């Protein structure tokens, strides 16, 4: 190999490594950016779930006051999932359970006012859709659970009338997609 050829070869090798480094940096930057975007999307999804929870807890549609849900409204909402989707958005469901000493789950029924039941599932149709997504392994979900109170409008019954009774409960809001 002549001296010229050796120098040429060195030159080509050096260029090759420089290009390699540039490509590596490019990949690093692209991957960093992708991670950032994914992180941002996850954070945003979490924040949306949190906002949905806040909205459910504060909206006069279901609440008597902030963090106190009205049992009459909850029962009314059981059969109106499509309307609830219009109001709160798609792909979510919520489970509200009164914390009582019995530990038994008694689901509240549509169209029947009762203070004997202790669990309301809002948008159960969405829960079914979620299970299907779960089976197809295409599910990403976020959930929040917070304590609240449920106001039982006809909670105390006396001879001359009724009074509202507040009961401690928890709400789980799930957002999936």
């Amino acid at each position: 190999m002549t001296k010229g050829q050796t120098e040429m070869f060195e030159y080509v090798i050096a260029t090759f490594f420089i290009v390699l480094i540039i490509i590596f940096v490019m990949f690093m930057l692209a991957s960093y950016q992708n991670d950032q975007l994914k992180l941002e999307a996850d954070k945003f999804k979490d924040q949306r779930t949190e906002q949905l929870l806040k909205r459910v807890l504060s909206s006069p549609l279901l609440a008597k006051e902030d963090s106190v849900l009205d049992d009459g409204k909850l029962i009314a909402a059981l059969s109106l999932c499509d309307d609830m989707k219009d109001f709160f958005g798609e792909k979510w469901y919520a489970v509200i359970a009164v914390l009582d000493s019995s530990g038994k789950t008694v689901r509240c029924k549509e169209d029947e006012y009762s203070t004997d039941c202790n669990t309301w599932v809002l948008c159960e149709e969405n829960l079914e859709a979620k299970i299907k997504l779960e089976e197809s392994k295409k599910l990403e979900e976020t959930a929040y659970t917070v304590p609240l109170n449920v106001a039982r409008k006809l909670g105390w019954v006396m001879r001359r009338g009724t009074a509202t009774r507040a009961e401690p409960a928890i709400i789980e809001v799930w957002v999936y997609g």
Partner: protein
Amino acid sequence: MIITFQMWKIVLGLVISGFLIVFAVNYIGGYTAQQNDVLRAKILNTFELACYNVYNTGNSMVFDDFTKVPSDISFSTTEQKIKIAGLGSRDIKVPVFFSVGDKMVIWRGEQDLGWWKFRYVVAIPETEIVFSVGSSPNALETMEGIVKALPDTTNFKNKVAYAFCNGNKIDNGCGTAKQCEAKALLDVLSSGNAPRSSKCTADIGKNQRLVTISMSCTNGMPGVCIEPQGPASGKARLEGSETVFVYGDYADLAALIAGYNKKDAYGVLGEAMYAHKNAEMAMELGVAAKIMAKRAELLASGLTGIAGSGKMDADADEMACVKLFQELSAFLDGVASSLGKGVDAAAGYMERAGEKKREIVEKGCDYD
């Protein structure tokens, strides 16, 4: 040999450097644009979350992230979505009346219908609302309604202030040296000493919005022109739009003033905000009417059931609530079924439902 090799080196060096430079410039250009898009998307996310926060909590806030990157935000009325050029859209699930600017105020307003409170968010940049008031008998009341429907920025860094246009002059709305904000102006208006103003010929600045209250508004008038025809009702016109806007509450006017005459890819923003308000309100009223009607019906049947079981005396005072709940339920059913023909078609039912709800609260049958 050496000369040939050196020539080769130079040529190859030039080709490779040229290639690298072009490549690097392209890549950096693309990367910068992408980073810019990421930043704009982040700002839009932050804006969306800020609107949700204000809507849910009622706590106002200032928002100045739009100063970081100029964002071309528009609103599509057909999709009811906020769009950012080249970055897709956001389906904000709460009513937001906005126009984008540097120093923005985000505030929650409320329209109380008696049986339902329609809440909305106003997000506008620092602004001075300039009233030009003609001889309309409802002018004072209309101004009061508008001021209450727009952000109260007392104790805020970014201000929504008020002024009156008098010919070619713009005077402070409160007649003081300080900026005239909502609370101060409402005091002035309630004292009945509102400054007189005449046809406005003054130049309206970039951070000012002209609101004319007149007996008759014509097409092509600057800013927003309002023609009150009664308490909280009338017609309005908007600069840049041919439409005559019929308003039935002050939230309609808040939407028009918030969007104002700003133009975006879909037309005049004020017009889009007005359509958005009415679409959101119709949807919300429909859902709320169904839930409240059903609740009233459930409570009526619940009370009847309790009395029937003997746990409560059949002549207990509360039994009077049964009839009231049934009547409220019927009015709300009327609201839900007539909303398909528009909010105006349901106005009669809504009024009666509001009255019935007030009666129910007064008689102690339910909470407000």
